[in-house]
């Protein structure tokens, strides 16, 4: 289990990075952010030609049968480029749910990018509270009714998958209403079902799907943080005040050295989340990386001065992505709370998890 990148992963990274630099640099992302944030042509190339859509799809269904580690490298680059494509929502969250449900026919459609899917789950839900924002029930006649708020990627999906009562359903005729979203490049929608026709495709363990997604989101957050750090470094080397680069002032240098240290550790945490993949590794990566991405974006805004406050500079797209992703799939606080039992750091008497001391705590209890 290595924390380094394999050669295959570096090649994949280079392919994604080159494509984004060529077709969709941040200034282009910004231009389309208010009208049609997603870029279907870019997605077609990325999904089909580079083949990222089928990374997590097993080979028997026409995919690459790759591991989370490769998908994570793609996410690093998509985070760095704030790329307007539904990779995370379709090729990670929805695809993983379908893999676990062994829904071969649907996976074949997703593998080559012909179809794009979304899982109707609130982006504000977490592995610890997977039902947050959802109120869907299965009627006796097999139709679904209810609503899910804060669904990411549903507005660009032609396949909508709805979890309800432990089952995963393929739904036709849902109303998907896009809302004005804090994150311009990954807007959320409200999905409303009013006796919608539904086909059950299998079982779903929503907490497991969200945990898998949370582990991979840490790589996207690392990518966002790294871009913010790199861009800020370039700026403070070039921007002069008091007849010298502002990056030569110790007050600025020390802030950036500390930020670099946070980002370096975010990379290690993101790699461990996919290498080890345990609930503890995922919770650690989320508890750390979500905050680092926000801190990096906030430092970037501050150290760019007035430019950082303008709509014209793409920085705000990163700040908005980072802050939304901090809430997505569990806040850092949610993940730390989970670590109380996962890592055996029980709280004071009466607090949640105080009794569930985890493996080490259990040993202590057993020996007394």
């Amino acid at each position, binding site marked *: 289990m290595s924390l380094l990148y394999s050669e295959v992963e570096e090649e994949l990274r280079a392919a994604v990075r080159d494509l984004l630099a060529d077709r969709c640099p941040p200034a282009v992302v910004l231009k389309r952010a208010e009208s049609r944030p997603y870029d279907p042509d870019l997605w077609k190339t990325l999904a089909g030609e580079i083949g990222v859509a089928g990374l997590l799809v097993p080979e028997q269904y026409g995919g690459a049968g790759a591991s989370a580690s490769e998908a994570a490298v793609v996410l690093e680059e998509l985070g760095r480029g704030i790329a307007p494509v539904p990779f995370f929502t379709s090729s990670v969250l929805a695809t993983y749910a379908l893999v676990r449900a062994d829904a071969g026919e649907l996976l074949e459609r997703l593998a080559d990018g012909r179809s794009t899917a979304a899982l109707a789950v609130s982006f504000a839900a977490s592995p610890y509270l997977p039902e947050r924002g959802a109120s869907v029930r299965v009627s006796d006649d097999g139709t679904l009714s209810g609503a899910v708020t804060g669904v990411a990627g549903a507005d660009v999906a032609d396949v909508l998958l709805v979890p309800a009562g432990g089952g995963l359903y393929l739904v036709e005729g849902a109303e998907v209403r896009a809302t004005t979203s804090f994150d311009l490049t990954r807007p959320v929608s409200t999905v409303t079902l009013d006796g919608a026709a539904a086909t059950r495709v299998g079982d779903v363990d929503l907490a497991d799907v969200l945990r898998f997604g949370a582990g991979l989101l840490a790589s996207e957050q690392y990518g966002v943080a790294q871009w913010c750090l790199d861009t800020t470094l370039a700026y403070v080397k070039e921007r002069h005040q008091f007849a010298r680069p502002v990056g*030569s002032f110790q007050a600025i240098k020390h802030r950036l050295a500390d930020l670099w240290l946070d980002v370096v*550790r975010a990379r290690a945490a993101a790699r461990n989340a996919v290498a080890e993949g345990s609930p503890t590794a995922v919770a650690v990566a989320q508890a750390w990386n979500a905050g680092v991405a926000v801190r990096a974006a906030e430092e970037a805004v501050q150290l760019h001065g007035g430019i950082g406050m303008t709509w014209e500079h793409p920085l705000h797209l990163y700040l908005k992505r980072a802050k939304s992703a901090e809430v997505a799939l569990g806040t850092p606080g949610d993940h730390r709370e989970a670590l109380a039992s996962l890592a055996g750091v029980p709280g004071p008497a009466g607090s949640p998890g105080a009794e569930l001391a985890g493996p080490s705590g259990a040993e202590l209890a057993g020996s007394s």
Partner: protein
Amino acid sequence: MDEARLKERVAAFLSENDPAGDRLEFLRARFDAGLAWVWFPEGLGGLGLSRDMQAVVERELAGTPQIDGGVQGIGLGMAAPTILAFGTDEQRRRFLRPLWTGEEIWCQLFSEPGAGSDLATLATRAVRDGDEWVVDGQKVWTSGAHHARWAILVTRTDPDVPKHRGLTYFICDMHAPGVDVRPLRQITGEAEFNEVFLTGVRLGDDLRLGAVGDGWRVAQTTLMNERVAIGGGGGGRGSGLVGGMLRSWREHPELRTHDLHQRLLSLWVEAEVTRLSGARLREQLAVGQPGPEGSGMKLSFAKLNQALTGLEMEFLRDLGYDDYAFRRSETVDFYGRGPGYRYLRAKGNSIEGGTSEILRNIISERVLGLPSEPRIDKDVPWKDLPR
């Protein structure tokens, strides 16, 4: 040499040398067999292998007599790599073997009362007198000087050139007349370190390490190794100081509070990502791609140690202290002492081996490529600098 061959070599060594026999004889034989530090050259305690192969030797020789990484720390971590890089063949042969076996202990004569973070401004003079040098000055924060047979020493040999250029590096004989070691008591009560007065100390020119005037470059090698030594170290999840804090936390449910719980969880996460970062760095080193992350490890550990030891005191609510009695301590013992000691001693972590502020300068300039602050001392002869 691959792992299997190395194991054979260790087995052959063990068949000829009894670990239950004389400790020193065993260690000397281990050095002579090239099994001391395998990445050193043959004939100097090594086999010219890659550094990660050392783990094989350590596994195979577990349970045999070992060297003392504490009192020998400065010799092993700082003097040895510097002697290897800059020493003459004669110096390497003379010093490395007893350094490794622990027959001779080393200390470091770098900092001075007037030269801390700005080490290159140091004032201890060395003046040539035939085949000898005469050294006069005062050094400070010298850990283990009271045990040391030898020291690594940086002196000023030319005051008429800018400060970085007029330095020369020596091996100092700590038994020479004129070397006066006095303990410095620390806030913990004990004295790990000393001030060392050098008065008319005569050192042979064969104790010079590197060229006259090249001392700054030689010292850089020492300092980079110091920071790796201080920031390094492996260990699994929940090891180190966070592990000690956790044991205490689990043993005393009655002392837990919500506030401390939140803070401990945050520190646990920070300790874990720091550990992962170190594990990733070691993987990079093992495949020959050293990353710049190393510069950050010491900075991370200093901050973590201070936060964890501070939290532990709040948690335990114990207003006592184990022992302020003045004593000479052999090594730093975080775990064998009380929480008050740990808290106080951890304060040194952000000062020793380069302050956290200097480390941030190094990271921002060497890793991030940010410009240095304007300098007024770079091209001025040392003797004309304000002090």
